[in-house]
């Protein structure tokens, strides 16, 4: 080695040392002599007193207490602990250490001690934040639609799938790949991804994009029975049939308060049979509007929501408003079904709007068949635009129902679903700002008691503060979606594999 090489090598080493030193420059020291604040810290997102799954991604947070340095000490009930130091207010826990920590806390608790270094250099210690870690795992994946505050126009929307154990998010399909189509209502068969669907509006053709055993095709569900295409779908447990609603919805606007509202002008529930490619009526009373279907786990009953037809609510000419939109309330109904013969029984009311003093919507039956998680709102069939929308739990064993006050806020909640083991629910909530919905999770115990909800963790804990899109229709699944965005796009545009459903007349 020549002397110049030596010099160069020395310079490189020195530079590396400086770089390493800069990267590892001392974060604030552990504040042993901190003064107690006598209260809990304000952390964003609010991850305090929540119950979390043992397989969730790190709950990174920001401490909204000012200061110029933060230390967070995480202690698992199993004995493991992690200390995170930060020069800012943001606490990010490395994924591997977080996993170890949760494994140690599963079935117990996770406590967090937060210390903040004030501008003066002194340290403040806050009261311990205590969270429970359930031994019940959550499904590994969450699929949602991301879109702006939806009015009439849309240009950019996409369905994405998030790995709940990490921060990885993958695209399922976006409007660019789908010929600027609107897409909605992704639905999985029993929380799996062998059979699932989503709906397209416009673009390559208004249709259902149906994936069965890894193969996707476009199905035009419009038939002589139904001019409108399928929406709000539910898979029969057999995986061979899909109940869906067909609706004529109208977006209208308020002069004050929440600006948007939706009117159901007419709706019915039909069933698509995958084997025969046929559509038949399920709940299609001409005097009623029926919407939001969901099957019982044994496939022997279909739950849905029903209200008298729109004409009932039309105001006389000269009235201030053309229709009494705020009197339209839906009952929760059930109709027996014989999967062998395909015969329907007589509809019965599970929870009437009068008893609930609310419109009962979006029923989702728990995997064990004991509960229905629904939304109750002052009126309407589209609760996410209504501040009054709350989650409610109906106990099918006792017939009792209650608002799920543990999970609700003073803003809209809705678009909920169960995990495959029935111990977790996810729902969209606008509690943060009243405008953008975010996915929240709650643990639900076998008796139906829910824990305090927590928002889907993000790598950047301040992410939600500036994200101008909604997380719409969050649905959990055990497995990831294996069909690539491009394969879905190809299927959407493939006219050869596309089919048009045939009607089955009663």
């Amino acid at each position: 080695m020549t002397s110049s090489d030596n010099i160069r090598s020395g310079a490189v080493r020195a530079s590396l040392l400086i770089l390493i030193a800069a990267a590892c420059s001392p974060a604030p020291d552990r504040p042993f002599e901190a003064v107690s604040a006598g209260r809990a810290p304000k952390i964003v997102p609010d991850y305090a007193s929540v119950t979390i799954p043992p397989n969730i991604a790190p709950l990174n947070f920001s401490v909204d207490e000012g200061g110029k340095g933060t230390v967070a000490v995480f202690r698992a009930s199993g004995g493991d602990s992690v200390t995170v130091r930060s020069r800012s207010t943001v606490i990010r826990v490395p994924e591997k250490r977080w996993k170890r920590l949760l494994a140690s806390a599963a079935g117990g608790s996770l406590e967090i001690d937060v210390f903040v270094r004030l501008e003066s250099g002194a340290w403040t210690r806050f009261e311990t934040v205590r969270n429970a870690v359930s031994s019940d795992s959550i499904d590994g994946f969450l699929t949602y639609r991301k879109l702006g505050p939806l009015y009439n126009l849309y240009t950019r929307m996409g369905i994405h799938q998030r790995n709940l154990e990490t921060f990885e998010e993958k695209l399922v399909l976006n409007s660019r790949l789908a010929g600027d189509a609107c897409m909605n209502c992704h639905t999985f068969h029993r929380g799996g991804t062998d059979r699932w669907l989503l709906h397209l509006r416009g673009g390559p053709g208004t249709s259902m994009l149906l994936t069965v055993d890894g193969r996707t095709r476009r199905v035009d569900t419009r038939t002589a029975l139904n001019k409108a295409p399928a929406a709000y779908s539910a898979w029969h447990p057999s995986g061979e049939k899909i109940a869906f609603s067909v609706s004529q919805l109208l977006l209208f606007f308020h002069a004050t308060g929440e600006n948007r509202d939706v009117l159901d002008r007419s709706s019915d529930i039909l069933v698509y049979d995958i084997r025969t490619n046929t559509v038949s009526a399920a709940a299609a009373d001409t005097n009623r509007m029926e919407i939001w279907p969901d099957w019982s786990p044994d496939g022997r009953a279909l739950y849905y929501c029903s209200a008298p037809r729109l004409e009932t609510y039309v105001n006389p000419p000269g009235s201030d408003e053309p229709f009494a939109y705020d009197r339209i309330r839906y009952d929760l109904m059930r109709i027996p079904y014989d999967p062998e013969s395909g015969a329907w029984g007589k509809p019965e009311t599970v929870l009437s709007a009068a008893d609930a003093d609310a419109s009962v919507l979006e029923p989702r039956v728990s995997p064990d068949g004991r509960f229905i998680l629904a939304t109750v709102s002052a009126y309407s069939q589209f609760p996410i635009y209504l501040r009054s929308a709350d989650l409610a739990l109906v106990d099918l064993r006792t017939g009792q129902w209650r608002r799920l006050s543990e999970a609700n806020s003073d803003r809209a909640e809705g678009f909920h679903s169960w995990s495959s083991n029935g111990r977790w629910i996810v729902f969209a909530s606008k509690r943060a700002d009243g405008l953008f919905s975010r996915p929240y999770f709650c643990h639900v115990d076998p008796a139906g008691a829910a824990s305090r909800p927590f928002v889907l963790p993000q790598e950047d804990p301040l992410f939600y503060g500036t994200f101008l899109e909604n997380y719409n229709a969050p649905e959990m699944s055990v497995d990831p979606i294996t069909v690539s965005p491009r394969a879905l796009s190809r299927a959407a545009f493939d006219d050869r594999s596309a089919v048009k459903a045939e009607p089955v007349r009663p």
Partner: protein
Amino acid sequence: MKEKIRTNSKFALFGPLVQEAVFFILFFLILWFRVRPTLSLESQQPVFFSGWAFLSEHLAFPGGLMDWLSAWLMRGWTSDWLASLEITAVVWTGTLLLRRWIEHLTGFWSVHSVHLIPAAFLLAAHTRYATPFSLTLGWACACLLLFTFRYESPRVPWIRIPAMLAWFIVCYWLAGGAALSAGIALALAQGLVRGKHWEGLTLLAASAGIPFIAYLFAEWSPLKQAFLHGLPLENPAIPLHAAYGIALFFAAAALTVWLTTLPVLQKPVNRFNEWSMPLKWAAGTALILAAAFLLHAGAVNRFTRTVLSVNLEARREAWPSVLERASRAQGWDPILSVQVNRALQAGGRLLDEMFAWPQRDGDNGLIPANKLCKAWPEETARLFFSMGLIGEAQHWAHEAMTLRGPTPELLRLLGTIYMLKGDSAAALSFAANLAKTPGGRPSAADLALCVRDRAERDGRPGHRRVLDAMPEKDFISVGRPSEADLLRLLERDPENRIASDYRAALALIEGDHRRLWETLDSGRRPAGWEGRTPRHVQEAFLFHAAVTPGFDARRLQPWIDGDTALRFRRFEETFRRAGNNRSLAESAVRDAFSGTYWVYRMFDRPAAGPAEGPDDFQ
């Protein structure tokens, strides 16, 4: 040829520079005074946020960095001269690099005129306001790629080719399709002109293969984007000749140089080379200047320029300028009616002068219907906001954000709407985003202050006016705001001058003088009419009295000026002279009474079109 140039070495050295200086001074002046790049900003409204998240989104696809840079730079295009200077500087730099590449390729010492052709096409492209700056930046990046290929080091091919490929990939990721156009030109240059066939083939394969590989990795991106993004070919607003001119120039230059080396063309080439350098320079300068000007002139769309100018002035609330720009319009569009009526109202002249302007769009030009709102949602939102229709303003501002993205102007408007509605968290969310836009921090801080401090919010005159005007009681709408909605606004605040003026203007524009009379017959003068009745209202009352059998003309007295009454008598006389025949009277009436309600009511009022239904919700 080389000998010839050497004898004119000073000229060869400075000639192209002088030519470029002349060309680019004109280029700059045309941009500044004729194109006005501020209108490109008005047309495109690029979205830009500071921070890694926004940058990383753009680094994820080829050409994204140029989009990012373009959005950032364009956000500063609030001054025509500065923006023109920016564009000129980038194009000149690219042109210099291009000249050096062509000089290297030809082996000549001096290249002039030819290298200015892409600049002429770029001028034409920028004349169309939908051309993003990223196109020019990408083109300059492609020129840099060409320029760097002059250096053929390292000399060992097995190191040089991978290094060359790596640099090409970097440029492709920076500039997208623009780099591909340079890649193809380089392939032709290396393979045909320089005889390095393997290098040429490698570059050609890379130009075709690398975008395809990028497409395979970027799952969300269509194949077309991998090849075309960054090229003018993907933008239908750019004139076709300019789009192809920019995209194909590099390859055409390489091919031309190769053709001149063919023995069959040696004779004409030599003959051309015998021309004196100053002569060629002078002819080239004249030609390129003429071509640039003609390309620019051919790309001018005066009507688009007027619409954008009017919208820009309306956004600035420079109402006299709105009227001045609109008065120069060649052609008309309903949005011009909307902005002109708004400008007239802001100047307190709506009910006096609205019929001096084209009102052929009827009520759609006053209060836009659904289709027009969808075409101009931000402009609509601002109109409704000024009236106090805060719900409709919110609706259309959100639609605008869907179409245009979260621009600073929309973030500010939406933040203000939510702040006035008392939705503090939503308002702060918009303020937080506004703080991440270039120069947006002060506005964001101000918005946040108004959210947190109610006294501050209520104390601002602009806020106070909307707070006083916005409805307290809810009502719903399924289409555009109606007269009933304006009435509700007036019930809330009888001093709401805009609602009052628009309500009267709506009756006038619908030709419903009866309604106007009946609503005002109570004797109570609406806001702003103290002292005198607006001219068009007087005209409508006189017309109403004349066509209503048994109308007691004395009832008009409190409303009518002597001048207007006299003028109406002359109008009636003119009509009588034509035998009360509408067709025969038209010409004379138009000549003598243009700009009156009478002419509008009798000849110009558009027939009512089919009502626009509301959209289905999906």
